[in-house]
C-alpha cells in the first residue's frame, strides 16, 4: 500500500490535478511566455502604427484615406472581430468546464468569424488596388498596406491555430492542461482584436 502511494506520488511529481506543471513561481511558464510574446508584439505593432501615423499625409496626387476608405464595410469587419473575442472567451470558459463539444463549437465559430474578417480585408485591398492605390504608390499606401497586412497575417495565423486546436481536441491528443492550451490561443486572439481596436480608430476613423 505504502509502495503504491510512493509510486503514485512519483508519477505525478511536478504536476497538479489539471495535468499542468508546478513551477518555481507558482505560475504557468507557458502563460508567462505567451504574455512576454504579446508584450514584444506591442513593439512590432507600435512601430508599424507609428510609421503609418507619420506617413499618412505623404501621398502626393494619389488617392488618400478620405477617397478610398469604406467606413461602413470596415465597421462591420470590426464588429465581426469584436464578436469573435466573445466567442473565444466562451470557448475558454467551456474548456475550463471540460465541456469539449462546446469548446470545439465556440472555437469553430471564432475561426469562421476570423475568416470573415480576413475576407473583408482581401476585398478591401482588392478594391483599393483597382482604385489606383498600389503598395508602392506612396508612403501612405506602403505604410497602410504593411500595417493592415501584418494584422491580417496575424488573424490568419490565429484562424490556423483555432482550427488546429479543434482537430487536436477531436482526436484527443491534447497534452497537459487542455484549458490552458485553449487559453493560450485565446490570449493571442484577443491581442489581435485589441490591435484592431487601435488600428480602426487611428487609421480609419480619425481624419488625416
Amino acid at each position, binding site marked *: 500500500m505504502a509502495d503504491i502511494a510512493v509510486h503514485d506520488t512519483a508519477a505525478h511529481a511536478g504536476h497538479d490535478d489539471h495535468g499542468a506543471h508546478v513551477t518555481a513561481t507558482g505560475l504557468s511558464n507557458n*502563460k508567462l511566455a505567451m504574455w512576454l510574446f*504579446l508584450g514584444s508584439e506591442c513593439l512590432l505593432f507600435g512601430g508599424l502604427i*507609428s510609421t503609418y501615423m507619420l506617413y499618412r499625409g505623404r501621398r502626393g496626387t494619389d488617392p488618400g484615406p478620405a477617397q478610398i476608405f469604406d467606413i461602413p464595410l470596415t465597421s462591420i469587419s470590426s464588429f465581426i472581430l469584436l464578436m469573435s473575442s466573445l466567442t473565444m472567451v*466562451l470557448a475558454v470558459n467551456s474548456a475550463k468546464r471540460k465541456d469539449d463539444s462546446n469548446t470545439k463549437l465556440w472555437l469553430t465559430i471564432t475561426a469562421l468569424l476570423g475568416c470573415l474578417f480576413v475576407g473583408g480585408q482581401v476585398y478591401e485591398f482588392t478594391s483599393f488596388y483597382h482604385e489606383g492605390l498600389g503598395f508602392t504608390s506612396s508612403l501612405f499606401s506602403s505604410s497602410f498596406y504593411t500595417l493592415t497586412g501584418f494584422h491580417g497575417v496575424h488573424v490568419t495565423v490565429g484562424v490556423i491555430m483555432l482550427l488546429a486546436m479543434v482537430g487536436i481536441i477531436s482526436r484527443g491528443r491534447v497534452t497537459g492542461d487542455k484549458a490552458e492550451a485553449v487559453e493560450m490561443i485565446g490570449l493571442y486572439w*484577443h491581442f489581435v482584436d485589441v490591435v484592431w481596436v487601435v488600428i480602426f*480608430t487611428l487609421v480609419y476613423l480619425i481624419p488625416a
Partner: protein
Amino acid sequence: MSAVTEHAAHEHHKAHDHHVPTDQYFIKVALFLAVLTAIETSTYWWPDALSSFATPTLIVLMIIKFWTIIRIFMHLKFDSPIFSAMFYIGLGLALFVYVVYLFTFQFFAR
C-alpha cells in the same frame, strides 16, 4: 517536499482557483464593447455635430475598449500581476517608440 516546492504548489493551486467570470458576464461586456463601437462608428456619419470633439472622443473610446479587452477578456484583472507587468512593459516600450518617432520626424527633422 521542501518548503519552496510546497509554496510553489500552493501558489500554482491559487493561480488555477482564481475567479472565473460566467458566460453571462462576458456577454454583457461584449454588448458594452459593441455599444462603444457603434458610438465610434457614428462619428463618421455626424462629423459636423462633433467637430473638434471627434478626435478626443474617439481616442477615449479606443482606450476604454482596449482596457476592457485586456483586463476582462484576457483575464489580466483576475490573473497574477506578473502577467500584467509582462504586457505593460511591452506596451510602455511601444508608446516610447512612438514618442521617439514623433520627436525625430516632426521636430528634429525641421
